[in-house]
């Protein structure tokens, strides 16, 4: 019991670092401010996404069963987890916290057209936005904390709050967080960040400004 105040003090002083960022929008893939890939001649996410999948050589056939929100989030996750050593992080303590504005509207609209015909469970399940968290968890073996929030637009300070609370209140060692939004084939935007407590030469301190800069590229 005597250790309680110390424990809290230590936790409140915790500094968090951005390990890596990926943004996909306007037929571009950007990582930490650097363009990884772009094809402006291909504005439709449905074909651009397929190109990215091929380029990544994921060999993950489940991708083709996913709805657009999951595909978008999945691709960003493939880019962000490549070339990074995640072995030091306990998969049971890796959290995923995502936000969106349009949520699953694209799939909701598709499901609505099937209600009076033959509704499909394979479509219905994707009318829940946290299925995107489920897909990443299956892909990565992550079993940590989950949270899916709906917000009017990207609010970096909200992400900073959420991540801070997770690292303080739970056993989280690594957190994948960000914004994932699919409104139409030409109006989509995903920005993901990997956040940890470990600082090294590649990491940046987690601040709202850093998030906003990455988001706005």
């Amino acid at each position, binding site marked *: 019991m005597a250790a309680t105040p110390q424990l809290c003090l230590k936790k409140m002083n915790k500094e968090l670092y951005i390990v890596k960022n990926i943004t996909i929008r306007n037929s571009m893939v950007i990582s930490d401010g650097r363009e990884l890939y772009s094809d402006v001649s291909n504005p439709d996410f449905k074909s651009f996404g397929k190109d990215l999948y091929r380029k990544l050589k994921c060999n993950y056939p489940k991708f083709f069963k996913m709805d657009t929100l999951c595909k978008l989030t999945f691709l960003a996750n493939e880019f962000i987890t490549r070339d990074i050593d995640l072995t030091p992080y306990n998969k049971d303590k890796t959290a995923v916290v995502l936000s969106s504005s349009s949520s699953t509207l694209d799939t909701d609209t598709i*499901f609505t057209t099937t209600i009076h015909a033959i509704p499909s469970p394979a479509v*219905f*399940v994707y009318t829940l936005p946290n299925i995107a*968290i*489920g897909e990443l968890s299956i892909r990565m073996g*992550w079993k940590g904390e989950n*949270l899916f929030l709906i917000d*009017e637009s990207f609010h970096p300070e909200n992400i900073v*709050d959420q991540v801070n609370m997770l690292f303080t209140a739970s056993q989280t060692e690594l957190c994948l967080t960000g914004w994932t939004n699919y409104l139409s084939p030409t109006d989509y935007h995903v920005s993901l960040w990997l956040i940890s407590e470990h600082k090294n030469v590649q990491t940046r301190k987690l601040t709202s400004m850093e998030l906003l800069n990455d988001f706005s590229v």
Partner: protein
Amino acid sequence: MLNGKENGGCSKHNMSYITSDNIITSLGNTTKEVISNIEKETTGIDYHHPYLNYTKAPISMVNSKKIQEEIIGIFSDVTFTRFESLAILSLHNALKNSIVDAGSPKTLFILSTTKGNIELLKQGVKPSDQIFLHNTAQKIAGLFGFIARPVVVCNACISGVLAILLAKRYIDSGKYDDVVVTGVDIVTEFVVAGFESFKSMSEKPCKPFDANRDGLSLGEGAGTVIISRRKKSESIKIVSGSSANDANHISGPSRTGEGLYLAAKNALLNNHKIDFISAHGTATQYNDDMESHAINRLQINEIPVNSFKGYFGHTLGAAGVIEIILTKHSMLNNMLYTSLGMENAGVASPLNVITHKQKKTLSRCLKLSSGFGGCNAAIVLEKDE
């Protein structure tokens, strides 16, 4: 060594008390009415003819007419959807019994739902702004004068438990002093068609944990809790909680209850001394077996457990909020309520399901919750002695 008491924050001033609540289901529009029907072991699940060909499905529906009448007495000049009406009446009823100032920058409103105003989405028509959950939340928050930007949790069937866990974490972080959490979902053609497509709806009122259970009964409802840093009249607090993913399947639970086991293990903080478990207990074959495995792995299978879903069905994004409120009142009344629908034990691993309501001193209780996407959440409630 961590124990339950240390997780509450740095001092006893940093606790999360449930200071006011309201439940609206088929069993009534106040917590008191709902509990008095649970005392009488009445179910609100009935054979409605809501949509399409799904006439066989027993469903728990709220009394929409009565709700509309009550709403007109509160906000006469605004029109609301059925979803909004439920949220507003629940919020109004919880706030009127509370001294919480919605207009304080230290007060937050969290909306928990899976599908919100989905019934406004019509084939071939451009979606209205009220389809977007943040707009719905802002409309509701605006009516009551909340000034902090509302938060919307949309995480399948664990939304309610997650929203309350988030409320506790906001209070621990010092950002807010009071968090008002409203969980709401309504039964719509969309949701009925979806669950029917999964063949997960029962032909009779659901029978959680029973050998002959054959699926869930959908329910609609709303629950509101006010979580406050400072204790007011009542004395049940949220002490810890956690969420976890199965990392196994998007529409089926883990066979071993992996995520639920992890969530509950983290929530219990090595202190497995609990007096009652309020399970998720949807009455689908898979869910109830999965929960029985998780509860056995935690070695808390001797603890009395119930599911409240036999009374008013599975209320989706409202379920966690409503069932945490019922756990709170179980604790205040020191009463174990019957798990309605359970006749013959029939889950994969043995459970101590409550088949007869009985008095018991309840000091520390566990709420479990699981959902599509492999998500699971658990919360521990304690009585302030």
